[in-house]
């Protein structure tokens, strides 16, 4: 049993799955009705009969009353495609516990919930580009292989580049669906463009932003060498109380900008620090989603 996916984790997965079913009563992610009409069981409307149609779908009651041959049409049910975009840049290994650990737990949990609802799930690990893929799959039985995939992931690459990732992601031959971005969003070029592209290509972006408390409240003062663990760049600084105050304000503004972006485009957004366990984080998401609906 791995460190991040222990037995306790698995128990919590089942619990979260039950909670999500109770909250959404079959409306979470998959089990969504598409506008495509077909072989479902739920009645949609009628159309005129044309030769060659299947007689089984003729509405004989209407024919008896109105002497018209009308064909019953049914709404077809379709499973949802969930794409989890997991940030594997070096900035994610910052903090205690590392943001990357929590991100993988959240990715696994979301995947389990989706698979349990008969949806299809794919995981894309990225940094400045796509690092590794776990292809679309269906069925709860695949969760163990997914967890193995997540467990084997290591932070790699240089700085986060969401635009680069999304650009390559949307050109894949695949159905549209839910795109869950799990990242700290420390993209020097900005996170907005990447999410914009996703939206423009009719993906439904959901953002889970993770940060470490040490990032929101730096615990150092004085003369220091600041080392960027993504780029390795070093900068000599004299950090004063005033600088710390300014930093906190900028960081808070950054978090606020993520929330505002998602709010303005109706995307789901969860911002959390790493001291919150994954199950609480997901419960918060489930409750939030339930309330919104």
């Amino acid at each position: 049993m791995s460190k991040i996916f222990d037995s306790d984790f698995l128990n919590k997965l089942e619990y979260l799955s039950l909670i999500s079913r109770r909250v959404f009563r079959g409306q979470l992610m998959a089990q969504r009705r598409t506008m495509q009409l077909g072989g479902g069981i739920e009645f949609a409307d009628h159309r005129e009969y044309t030769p060659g149609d299947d007689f089984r779908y003729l509405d004989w009651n209407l024919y008896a009353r109105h002497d018209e041959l009308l064909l019953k049409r049914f709404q077809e049910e379709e499973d949802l495609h969930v794409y989890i975009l997991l940030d594997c840049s070096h900035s994610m290994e910052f903090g205690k516990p590392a943001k990357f650990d929590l991100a993988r737990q959240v990715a696994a949990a979301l995947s389990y919930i989706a698979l349990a609802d008969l949806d299809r799930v794919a995981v894309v690990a990225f940094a400045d580009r796509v690092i590794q893929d776990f292809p679309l799959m269906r069925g709860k039985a695949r969760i163990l292989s997914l967890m193995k995939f997540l467990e084997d992931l290591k932070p790699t690459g240089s700085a986060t580049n969401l635009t680069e990732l999304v650009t390559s992601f949307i050109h894949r031959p695949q159905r549209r669906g839910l795109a869950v971005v799990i990242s700290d969003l420390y993209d020097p070029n900005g996170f907005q463009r990447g999410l914009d592209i996703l939206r423009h290509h009719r993906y439904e972006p959901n953002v889970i932003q993770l940060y470490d408390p040490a990032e929101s409240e730096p615990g150092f003062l004085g003369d220091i060498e600041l080392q960027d663990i993504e780029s390795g760049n070093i900068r000599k600084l004299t950090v004063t109380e005033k600088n710390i105050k300014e930093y906190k304000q900028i960081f808070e503004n950054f978090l606020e900008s993520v929330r505002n972006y998602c709010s303005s485009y109706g995307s789901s957004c969860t911002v959390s620090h790493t001291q919150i366990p994954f199950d609480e984080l997901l419960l918060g998401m489930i409750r939030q989603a339930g309330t919104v609906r």
Partner: protein
Amino acid sequence: MNFTNPTSWMWAALAIPIVIFYILKIRLRRVPVSTVMFWHQIFEEKQPRSIWQKLRHLLSLLLQLAFLMLLTIALTDPFFDWEIREVRRLVVVVDNSGSMRALVDDEDTRLDEAKDETLAIIDSLRPRDEMAIVAAGTQPRVVCGLTGHQRTLKDALGTIDVTDGPTRIKEAIELTRRLISDHENGKAVIVSDGSFENSEELVQADDIVWLPIGEESDNIAITQFQVRRSLVDPVGYQILVEVRNFADEPAETRLELELAGNVVDVIPLKLEADGRWFQVFEKTSPDGGELLAKLEAEDTLPMDNVARAILPERKKQPVLLVSEGNVFLERVFQACPLVEMAFRNDPPSKVPAGGVVAYHKKIPNPLPDGDLIIVQPENATDLWNIGDTIENPIVAKQDKDSPLMSFVRLDNVLMPEARRLTIKGEHAVLAQSLTDDPIYMSIERPNGRVVVLTVNLDQGDLPLRTAFPIMVSNALSWFARNQGELRESFATGAVAEIDLNDQLPASLLGSESLELELHSPDGRKRPLALRNGTTTIGPLDRCGLWRVAYRDFTVTVPDKEEPPLVMVDEVACNLTNPDESDLRPAIEPPEDAETLAAGLGGRPVWFYLIVLAFCLIGTEWFLYQRRFIS
């Protein structure tokens, strides 16, 4: 400049580790962060000024090294030559006598003002100056020896409490001069209101600086107060009172006398400017206790408006007359106001405690223990042999000095008959005839006193003379041993010797377990030593009643740790000191008061060096370290 402790220069070596730490410090601490994009936003807006950036660490090092050097120099205790040449030795005499209780305003007394003046002197002390404090009230004492430590001097000054005693200025100045010794810059400073004798003469001394305290204030005071039992009247007593007006204006007041809480007399007084009123009152009362004299005067020194004295109580004296019947003797004893009279025909088995037995004619042989009056003896006893009768004895000689013969003259008394006695032991002849035969005599025995009158009372006119009751009254007073005829009221500052032989139980006299205590009017107590039945108390530094008492260890009281206190004697103490009561200034402010002021705030060089060092380190902290403190 010289250094007291040059070896402290070795502390300068600490500069080496400071420089090492400085070099280590400029190797900055590396802090990994997940991204620097937020820090870029802060620091790209504010580019550091390059010159300051280059010099700031060096300046920090220089400030730290300067801090170390200042501390090191301070440790060497540097001083200037003039400090040694001009070092002073001050001895401040603080007057804490009774007059210093006078109020200068609603709250503060003259002593408070004197302390403030002394504090100013302490604050003006220069480094290496020495100062001592002497208290001059009641009993001069060195409150604080020579020291330059201001805190010690201030603490010692705070312990000086005002006394009710007189100013012992001469003794204090002697003490002061001994402390100054032959110091070149020695100076005595007298902080006083000048209410003492010869103050003007003492002002002239070259080695004394005067700091006068207080302002002129009118005062009326009781300057004498004594009471004593009358020598004539067994229940009478005499009060001596003197009241003086220490003011340049006439004054009116009322003097009230109280005995044990009961008003005895109220006397309205009109006093001239600087006037003096003096009177002796004759009063009667067998009661004793505290006699209080109070002046109705609202002045700045209330202490001398009250005086106390102890009036001894006259106790009833049991007298047993053993006689077959003599009306003269019966009547003469009954006429004495303090006698409890009883009659018997036959001799008692023993004399009642504290009483007197008077035998008429038939005298028991041997005589019983106790005090006895023998009148007209007809038989011999163990003290005398009986002789024949003396016809018409004329008193030719009488002992005028004996208290038994006070106010008694027997030379004209007609006495047809008396009995000739031959006394066996030592005796005092109080009256004797022309033939040298004793007619009236006294005998002191270890087991009691005896008075013998050989005159036949049935004949002659002695019982009809006024001398007869006086003789009996004198005898009874002699038997009563004249206790407490005069219980002197002492002036504050006095040292008194008290005889406790009669007050203490015989079993405790000379006992090592006796713990005698003196209780002052303000509740303090101090142990007393008893020697040959007497003890010495004083100097008495508080007005009021001082009590001598002992702990009775033979009695245990539940729930109390200490055995009960048994009071033995009381002593009254009053200010009664015209010099202390005169609150008008006797001395003028000195012209050389400026000699007490010292320069530079009275701090040594090392103090300023340390202050400067901490200013530097404070600057360094403000510039470099403050930001590290959240």
